[in-house]
């Protein structure tokens, strides 16, 4: 593999999480999101092979992903309100302003996820793996919508705090 593509691949790997989160949140379909992510990578590799100058690969990938998401919406003719192109632009702007940092945060989060209590893991699986709506989860778990929203929010909050703490502890002492 040429060095240039290898370097892009490394960069893509390092920044793929926020991109995947972006795509998934925009289309709410895991298989579709995977396909789009893969397509973004293919186009990046093709562009690199053609010798195109890509100064900011992260931004470049988000731009491609945005176009693919628009295509996806058009093809699926989704009737549900998930987002519109204005929101798409705002979220793209957010990611451009706050790109995924290569500071061990992902690893810290992965470790924190691994330590989640079973109940919390179950919630995460139902929401993101099975793609259930809060209504669907509420029916399965016999719980109220609000309590589930709150519970998932708590899990996310706890994960972020846990990762912060891990990163803080990992920092060298002054």
């Amino acid at each position, binding site marked *: 593999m040429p060095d240039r593509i290898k370097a892009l691949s490394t960069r893509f790997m390092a920044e793929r999480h926020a991109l995947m989160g972006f795509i998934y949140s925009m289309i709410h379909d895991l298989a579709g999101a*995977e396909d789009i992510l893969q397509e973004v990578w293919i186009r990046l590799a093709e562009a690199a092979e053609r010798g195109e100058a890509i100064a900011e690969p992260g931004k470049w990938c988000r731009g491609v992903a945005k176009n693919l998401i628009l295509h996806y919406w058009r093809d699926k003719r989704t009737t549900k309100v998930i987002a519109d192109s204005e929101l798409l632009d705002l979220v793209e702007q957010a990611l451009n302003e706050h790109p995924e940092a290569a500071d061990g945060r992902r690893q810290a989060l992965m470790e924190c996820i691994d330590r989640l209590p079973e109940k919390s893991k179950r919630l995460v699986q139902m929401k993101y793996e099975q793609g259930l709506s809060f209504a669907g989860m509420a029916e399965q778990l016999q719980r109220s919508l609000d309590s589930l929203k709150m519970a998932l929010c708590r899990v996310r909050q*706890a994960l972020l705090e846990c990762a912060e703490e891990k990163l803080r502890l990992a920092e060298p002492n002054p």
Partner: protein
Amino acid sequence: MTRLEELLLLWQDQTLTEDQLAELKRLLASDSGRAKVAEDLFLTGVLLESLQAQGASRALLAGREGLAVPEEACAPPTLATRSVFGIGAMQRWRVIGLTSTAAAVLLILGTILWFRTSPTEPLPAATAFAQVEQVQGETFVVSKENKLPVQEGQVLTPGEGIATQGVDSEAVVQMENSVRLKLGGDTTVFTTTETEAPRAAGAKVVLEQGDLLVEVTRSLKRKRMTVETPIGVAVTESEDAALHISDAAGVVVVRGEINFTHRPTGQSIRVKAGQYLAGTQQGELYTSQFFSGPGQVWTTFPRSGVGVNSLGYSLAFSADGETLAAATRASESGVRFGPVDGEEYPQERPGRLCVGLSPASMPGAAILATADQGNVLLYELATGKQLAALKGDRRSPPTCLAFSPDGKTLAVGRGNLRDAAGVVEVWQLDTGTLRATYRGHAGGVTALAFSPDSKLLATGSLDKTVVLWDTATGQERTRSLMVPALVAWSLAFAPDGNTLAIATGPDDFRLRQPGDIKLWDVATETVRATLRGHRRAATSIVFSPDGKSLISGSADTTVRFWDTGTSREYGMLKGHQAAPGFEALAVTLSPDGKRLATASFDRTVKVWKTTWTQIDGGSRILTAQAAQNMPWRYSGALLTKQ
């Protein structure tokens, strides 16, 4: 929970209204809002990745617990928390007093409820004692008299059991803080009050049916855990042990060591970590190596193509072993082909149902054959350019195809309709003309295999027969009815051409009828050996390059490795998220044996790197593990639990 957090959750839930969408956009106009959404999306991405990474291991082992999720996180500001900022000291004490009183009342009520629902007599220390920790789907507490819905936290008294109902149901039961039971779908487990012999003193459960993971931690100390199953009794022999008993794989020891006593024969055998229990046709027990892992996802199809009575995936390696092709029954998917290793994404072209790649002996460029709308499409493998379409009857679509090893012909099996006769077409590749049509199967053709010298073509059918055709004359050489009457789902000739392996099974994968693999002697036209071990239909088989090993995939969700000399299974691979009885696991091996490809209900095609060892003059797979993951392989399929 802030308003922005709430709106982001609603956004991901697809329940955002137009007004809420407008509000979300307003909030994202601020720097802090955009920073929050960037963090939120990053977290979502990592969660999605972690779910994939946990996939295979989750099926066997529940995750460790440790991270506390505080109840107060995300909660709207309460009276107590607000007091810190806005209420005076006296009011704070009043709030603390009120909450303390409320807590005390709740404690008293809880204690009363506890004594009303708990057994009045304290439980003897040695008896099984369990508490339901987690439930999902339809779950019940069962006893001889009753079957009542169970609640999380409920205590099981000795003699009571817990039952899950439905494939999506599951339950986790904690016993004496040292034994954890995880029940899969359609499982029934009883605790017991039976007095144990001193040697086996410890916890005990009786598994009536289903899928059970038992984890014993060190705190059980030298006591033993006994699990009675319909086929025998497993007793832990180490302080830290985990065993998985399932319909698909039988008894697998994940951690530690157990002693298993077979009920019908009284035989005992020790099973160590990484081993599973196997048995010969004569009832002799032995252990074999268990492989598991996430594998390398080569591609993920958008839809699963499997059903309960049809082969869902077709796989083929190129002659040089460097290209893999995969097709599925799912109508939305195309055929995919590309490098086995490396970072090039597979190409996709129209095509489904079945796929074949031309042999090395064929002159010219390598060809991929697949089916579409009743026709067979031929593509140039290197470029993906369509070369020809071999026209056929759309009402009798291709079900399987095979290139002859001499590279001159392509055989196409047709007719998957149960009430339609199956036909086999033989196409001349250099002219693109139909050379012959073999008629004689009363049901759709399910499998095809050419002998290595291309002189014989074996065909299997839903009519439960296997026919051997003479390719020179187009005449039937022999016809065998499968006994017992089972469908031949896959066929493979051994490299020396002397043996035809026939993978059999019922025509409905949901039936708990074992799928045998028959090794049929071509010269004597008799069954030389029967390989027994799969618990449901065997759906796919392939020989190792030297013919000493046979690899099979089954609707029981496992891949098994067989020694063709001894007819024993020496290994089992479980690497897909699967649904027993709802899939036809497909396997294929590269010509050099170094790569194994599998495809399953979970929509993924996975590639495993194999290493081999020489034993008793034959080669055996020693390991099967994932090759390096490709950079864009974000997630495997995320469907059902094992």
